[in-house]
């Protein structure tokens, strides 16, 4: 690991002030915030991230880790740990997709460490991004190319790709946030702003090194998930190479508002298949106002992957993704709600 200086944040404002004057995109900036460390230290050890100053924001944990359940919705502090939220009884009961997505991520140890804010910002597992002996990686080194396009790309994305990057967004929790139309509260030098969570991640396009809409120095402070008719009828289905402790090959976060089998509203987000946490709006539109059965679910899944582009190693993913979504929709429809 390269040398860096370490300091602890004593209040949010000074942490933001310290990190606000950097020119680079936040994920490449020389000043990095340390929360759970499960992405940052990993990537520092393998020389992908190279901060020269690390600001430990864990001393702020008490203030920014609250889990608040109200009739209006769920507010989650960004420094809450994955395990605390996953096993919170009200989250398990009222927002099952949130609890399930968190429980199915990483391992028990990592979930005790990783914060929610860090979780949504975790970096891709693309092996060409993580292995610096490959010099081609537009995420790591803008303009250098993309080795995955012609390389081993079994785990790579089929939705939201560009000719510059096909790296998969690896997380699970973000899909739950998108399915439930969550907002994210961000603190910065100019104060706090709250934006729809789905606007946080940016498609790679021709700037894959810019992964989010966060400005330098900004910190995610909370997530707000509105209480909705569909929150209870929600689930997260994750299909992967191993039964546990593995990233998704395909996953679906699904939330349904049903009345006598008719879909009033459907919310769908896909994981393991896209460059960002992917909202499948086309599939939602197919379902709205219809009776949800296997045939209709299949039509929705076809719509979700109509724009898929494969790269050889991941040719299996559209069909895996479609089947994952069909199963998730049918399981969600069959849920007994109290």
């Amino acid at each position, binding site marked *: *690991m390269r040398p860096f200086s*370490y300091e602890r944040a004593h209040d949010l404002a000074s942490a933001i002030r310290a990190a606000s004057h950097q020119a680079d995109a936040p994920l490449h900036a020389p000043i990095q915030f*340390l929360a759970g460390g*499960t992405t940052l230290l990993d990537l520092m050890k393998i020389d992908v991230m190279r901060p020269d100053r690390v600001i430990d924001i864990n001393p702020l944990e008490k203030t920014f880790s609250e889990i608040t359940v109200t009739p209006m919705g769920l507010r989650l502090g960004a420094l809450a740990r994955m395990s605390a939220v996953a096993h919170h009884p009200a989250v398990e009961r009222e927002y099952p997709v949130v609890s399930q997505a968190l429980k199915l991520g990483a391992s*028990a140890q990592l979930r*005790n460490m990783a914060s929610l804010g860090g979780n949504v910002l975790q970096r891709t597992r693309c092996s060409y991004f993580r292995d610096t002996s490959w010099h081609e990686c537009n995420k790591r080194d803008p303009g250098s190319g993309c080795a995955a396009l012609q390389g081993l790309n079994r785990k790579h994305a089929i939705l939201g790709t560009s000719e510059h990057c096909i790296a998969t967004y690896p997380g699970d929790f973000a899909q739950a946030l998108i399915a439930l139309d969550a907002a994210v509260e961000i603190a910065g030098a100019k104060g706090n702003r709250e934006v729809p969570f789905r606007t946080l991640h940016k498609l790679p396009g021709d700037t894959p090194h810019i992964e989010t809409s966060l400005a330098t120095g900004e910190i995610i402070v909370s997530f707000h998930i509105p209480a909705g008719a569909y929150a209870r009828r929600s689930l997260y289905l994750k299909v992967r190479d191993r*039964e546990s402790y593995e990233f998704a090959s395909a996953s679906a976060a699904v939330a349904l508002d049903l009345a006598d089998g008719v879909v009033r509203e459907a919310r769908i987000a896909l994981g393991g298949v896209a460059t960002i946490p992917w909202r499948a709006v086309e599939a939602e539109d197919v379902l709205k106002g219809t009776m949800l059965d296997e045939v209709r679910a299949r039509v929705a899944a076809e719509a979700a992957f109509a724009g898929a582009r494969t790269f050889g190693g991941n040719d299996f993913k559209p069909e895996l993704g479609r089947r994952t979504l069909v199963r998730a929709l049918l399981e969600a429809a069959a849920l007994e709600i109290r």
Partner: protein
Amino acid sequence: MDANSPLKASLSASRALKLVLSVNGRDHRLSLDPRVTLLDALREHLGLTGTKKGCDQGQCGACTVHVDGQRVLSCLTLAASVEGKAVTTIEGLALDESTLHPMQQAFMDHDAFQCGYCTPGQIMSAVACVMEGLAETDDDIREYMSGNLCRCAAYPNIVAAIKQARAEMKRSRK
């Protein structure tokens, strides 16, 4: 150990952090490079080599310790970030000089290892798993212990050991 080893990199004094780490109930004063992980602090600076370095990148679980009672990976934890918290390692688990923790005894009773390298991490993780209430069924044990790899594949015996210790731990709590 080589003076140039990154584990004990001797940078200028201004870069070194003066820390007090509480490990197994004892405070230790250390002067550490900011890069030193909790794992390296334990093994290289405090001589507590029970905690093992497997992958050193958060994938194998061999380095599992408890911080304020929570199981975490010491290889992805900066030593500096646990100042003021209570660290427990495999060396601090036994009840006294002559009495092993029920989980340690159960691993021996069930031969829940072969080479033994992953065992301290398995045991620390298993103790936490029982305390979390996530070791109630065999499936739960397999799921919530999935962060601890055993390349000798002693998994069936590890599950058996955890079940024995679970019963003992519940009894002793009453």
